[in-house]
């Protein structure tokens, strides 16, 4: 048992490293179109994985996760565009504002359970959205915040000896590193003692208090962590998108991330990432064929929920082996 587990661990680390290096190699040979697509996918994958800390690991179904993504996006966009701060500082501030918003909302949300928790997260996300939507002077209201400058990333292309790299290509590499750090942090959390405690809360919160877990505090902590990572993803996305708009944090965006996580499989660490990648791909492909993306999405969801409740990852696992993964 010991040796196998260690082997498993080493294998997983190797696979993750290979994935990272493989993704890092993309801009060196793939056309810019794919780089842009992958950049989008990376950020959204990171976002839905952060939601999975709540939904999959702690059993907290948040309907308002996009709020922290949006807060981060506005923070980064505003600081770069209006305050002229450097990208690094703005990005850190994006994470901080996401975490702060999550602390504010989470303080109240973690007092409730099940659907009441979900409703309260939704309520807070609507409040945050309304503030950004209405605060014309600061956020540009429904017009949003456009024309956010790209950070100066020529040092990256120079360092790599590829002066022909566009800002988008260099920025992809920055995103990749930030996302990788976030994912590594999440991996550390879920495989730590805290990770096991989170799962006891998911399985049976009352019992968890009777083994000595202050469940409210733990739930608040993970809510803040998830909000911080969502904020960082938002900051990355603001620059990637060169603009921030209120619908980044609208409730439909929250639903979209939740669907991605469920689609990929909330019972696993990587499931939500696979879910977001697949849905983004499908979106892109169906757009070329039909305007009825929502219809297609509905059908996909229907089939998935009825036939494969453990998501794409569950399906994949069923093919590779049948052992329980978590």
């Amino acid at each position, binding site marked *: 048992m010991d040796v196998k587990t260690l082997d498993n661990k080493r294998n997983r680390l190797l696979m993750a490293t290979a994935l990272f290096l493989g993704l890092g190699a993309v801009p060196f040979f793939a056309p810019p179109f794919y780089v842009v697509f992958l950049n989008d996918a990376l950020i959204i994958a990171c976002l839905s994985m952060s939601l999975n800390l709540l939904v999959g690991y702690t059993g907290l179904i948040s309907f308002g996760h996009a709020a922290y993504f949006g807060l981060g996006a506005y923070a980064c966009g505003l600081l770069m565009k209006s305050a002229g701060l450097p990208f690094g500082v703005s990005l850190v501030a994006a994470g901080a504002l996401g975490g702060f918003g999550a602390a504010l909302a989470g303080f109240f949300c973690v007092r409730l359970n099940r659907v009441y928790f979900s409703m309260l997260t939704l309520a807070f996300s609507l409040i945050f959205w309304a503030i950004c939507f209405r605060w014309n002077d600061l956020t540009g209201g429904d017009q949003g915040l456009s024309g956010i400058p790209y950070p100066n990333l020529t040092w990256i292309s120079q360092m790599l000896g590829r002066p022909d790299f566009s800002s988008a290509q260099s920025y992809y590499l920055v995103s990749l590193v930030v996302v990788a750090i976030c994912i590594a942090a999440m991996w550390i959390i879920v495989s730590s003692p805290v990770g096991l*405690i989170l799962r*006891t809360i998911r399985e*049976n919160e009352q019992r968890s208090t009777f083994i*000595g877990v202050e469940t409210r505090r733990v739930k608040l902590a993970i809510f803040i962590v998830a909000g911080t990572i969502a904020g960082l993803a938002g900051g990355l996305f603001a620059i990637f998108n060169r603009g921030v708009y209120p619908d980044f944090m609208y409730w439909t965006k929250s639903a979209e991330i939740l669907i991605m996580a469920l689609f990929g499989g909330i019972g696993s660490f990587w499931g939500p990432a696979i879910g977001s990648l697949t849905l983004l791909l499908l979106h892109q492909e169906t757009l070329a064929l039909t305007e009825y993306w929502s219809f297609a999405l509905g059908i996909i969801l229907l089939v998935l929920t009825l036939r494969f409740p453990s998501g794409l990852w569950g399906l994949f696992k069923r093919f590779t082996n049948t052992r329980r993964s978590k």
Partner: protein
Amino acid sequence: MNAPAKDLLTVRALRKTFDGFQAIRGVDFSICHGRVHAVIGPNGAGKSTLFNLITGLDRPDEGEVTFLGSPCSHMSPASLCRRGMVRSFQKSNTFLGLSVFENIQAAIVSCSGEGWKIWPPLGLRFADKVQEIAEQVGIADKLDLFPEDLAYGYQRQLELAIAIASRPRLLLLDEPTAGMSSSDTRRTVALLKRIVEDLNIVLLITEHDMGVVFSLADRIIVLAEGQIIADGNPEEIRANTEVKRVYLGKS
């Protein structure tokens, strides 16, 4: 060192009303010596309510619970657990999506103060302790299974393992043999006797099965309609006419 402390638990003038129904009306007792204390009483006598009040799941309307010398009616179940007051539940109450190993490991992690650590990775830490506890309750060969794969009797033993893993000084068990077959019941009684000896802990149980109570407890508190009507050793309780009338006579 772990000899039963004086006044491990004191319950004073405890009252609790639910929607006008007086579930507990003025209960006083303390636990200072002895090993196994049992609370018995007919259905609806208030046994589970009393347990919930003691362990912090419910707040009393009046009165006070003192554990190890400090008042604890305001404490959360979690902090009571960390101080050594641990309980189990009437219905099997485990972490269904976690393996038997992880069920026990989680309790150890939490009670050893590592519940907030994010480094190093958990992996198989505490495996020795998990093994030891699993052996004590007799589920050492079932660590890789999930609770729902276990037979009912083993689920209750897992419950006990989780409780022991929390390093109790006072262990409250709510009907530890409820719903068990007679062979499971016998095994559980033997198990509880051994655990009380080996781990040097004090047990407070509620129980329906008089056979279990009289073979296990060295002190019995009889509850009826939210009040204590008798409190003494098994011989005294057997001889008490009031108890015979309200309880033993009926069953």
